[in-house]
């Protein structure tokens, strides 16, 4: 649904160049919720703005719903050039919501939702009907006549969502849409996005710096750092990938991996393995005492997933059989590196984090 190929964005100021995007290849499948996560400055914001060409990529291409948007943008000017009519039409089929909502304070809630319809040239009566339908969909049917200034943050974002859906888009871009909201409101807005994704088949590309957002709504995720996509894939596949940074950050397990006389093992549960009492089976089968150092369990996209850091007695060499037992049960097993040792695929610095 959304494909970026070798997307590069370089900002040139008088005396230096800043590379915000450095060859980003991203593929968002139709009907999925795709989360791009990264710290500020990682290039997420540039990425999402390049998808609907609010920022013109320096090189590379963006295809949304089979249409090459980069081909619609007049070449030559670095940015700020006037968008062509074709690009404006394409944009009207891509909804977008923002961190600070960006609602017009001079208009009522209904007026805000009608704005994209005015741009599309929808007649007044149809506009009003459609706006009220959309407000009903986001649960704000009774707020049509009030001004955004009188709404709470969560309500404002719901209006933003209703407005983004007015043009009947197939794709919704979410630019840190929940970052200005409290945790409770964040959950309800994410639930709404999830519902819209399911009911309308809406493809959602969201950027965020909160792991919780990825955990609660995303089917797929990408981790960005320094303008590059470091890791990407379906969330459950990532969790099954040994040494995945995203998996480690989604389910941070505590406990110091450097314990004397024991072997510390990170176990990732996913798929059918979650239903089995593996740890007690392991203890019984091999008559060993297992200490649980840390654990994180959660439901990701409707599936139980989790990680656990356990300690087995004896050195690593003594535990080859129990570890094999865990792998046999379909679990992903990782040996986190203690500082100074390098007995794993995970870079030391990341495992300690």
């Amino acid at each position, binding site marked *: 649904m959304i494909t970026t190929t070798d997307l590069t964005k370089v900002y040139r100021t008088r005396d230096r160049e800043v590379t915000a995007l450095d060859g980003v290849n991203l593929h968002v499948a139709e009907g999925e919720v795709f989360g791009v996560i990264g710290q500020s400055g990682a290039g997420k914001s540039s990425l999402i703005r390049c998808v609907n060409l609010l920022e013109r990529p320096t090189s590379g291409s963006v295809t949304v719903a089979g249409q090459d948007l980069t081909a619609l943008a007049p070449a030559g000017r670095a940015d700020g050039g006037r968008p062509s009519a074709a690009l404006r*039409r394409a*944009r009207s089929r891509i909804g977008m919501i923002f961190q600070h909502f960006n609602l017009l*304070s*001079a208009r009522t809630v209904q007026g805000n939702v009608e704005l994209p319809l005015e741009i599309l040239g929808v007649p007044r009566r149809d506009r009003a009907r459609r706006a009220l339908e959309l407000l009903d969909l986001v649960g704000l049917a009774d707020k049509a006549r009030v001004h955004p*200034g*009188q709404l709470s943050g969560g309500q404002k974002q719901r209006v933003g969502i209703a407005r983004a859906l007015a043009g009947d888009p197939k794709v919704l871009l979410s630019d840190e849409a929940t970052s200005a909201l409290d945790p409770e409101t964040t959950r309800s807005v994410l639930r709404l996005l999830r519902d819209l994704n399911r009911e309308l088949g809406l493809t959602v590309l969201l950027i965020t710096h909160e792991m919780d957002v990825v955990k609660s709504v995303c089917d797929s995720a990408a981790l960005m750092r320094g303008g590059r996509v470091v890791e990407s894939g379906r969330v459950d596949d990532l969790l099954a990938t040994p040494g995945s940074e995203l998996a480690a950050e989604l389910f941070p397990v505590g406990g110091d991996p450097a314990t004397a006389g024991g072997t510390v093992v990170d176990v990732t549960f996913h798929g059918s393995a979650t239903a089995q009492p593996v740890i007690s089976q392991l203890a019984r089968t091999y008559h060993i005492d297992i200490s649980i150092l840390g654990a994180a369990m959660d439901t990701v996209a409707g599936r139980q997933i989790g990680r656990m850091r356990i300690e087995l007695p004896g050195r690593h060499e003594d535990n080859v059989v129990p570890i094999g037992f865990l792998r046999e049960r379909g679990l992903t097993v990782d040996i986190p590196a203690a500082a100074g040792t390098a007995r794993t695929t995970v870079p030391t610095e990341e495992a300690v984090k």
Partner: protein
Amino acid sequence: MTWDQMQPLLVQGCVDTLYMVGWSTAVAALGGLPLGVLLVLTDRGGMLRNTAVNKVIGAVVNVGRSLPFIILLVALIPFTRLLVGTFIGPTAAIVPLAVGAIPFFARLVETAVREVDHGLVEAVQAMGGGTGTTVFKVLLPQALPSLVAGLTTTVIVLVGYSAMAGVVGGGGLGNLALTYGYQRFETGLMLATVAVLIVLVTLVQLLGDTAVRLLTRHERKGG
């Protein structure tokens, strides 16, 4: 001079001032609004970025702003004569008043439009809106309270300018204070004129403030 003698002079002065200020405000608004909006749009990062046009408009506005009004008044005499056939009287005074106020209001419009959150512009562009949509559905409606406040300031400045219009026989309250009060030592009339001017300016400011308050009431309620 008795009150009976002063009254018709004051009334006529008031009428002339309102006539001059009213028309020149209307012209200044019509001229300053597009200039101010263009100053923002053609600036770097604007939607119609065009450095040459921006520099030219900026220069014209700056020249207009830096000329003392009294000089402008005299310098424009040929232009005024061309436009209205005479350079004497209230109607002729409207020309230099408007020309003086256009760049003043244009800068206020520029400031007001610049204050509109760029996120709103981005949102409208993401919806597929073009420059026209952005200006008429976002920039101007969102800047309206500031624009009204700017217009209020412009009217008050024009009341002050109109006093100088007396130099070219423009009439009005300022002229009255000057010719009768100052030159003929009619202190009573001068004080009365000043009082009327104070009332006039206060009324304009009050009206403007009320309009701004009405326009922004829904933004402040509840937060």
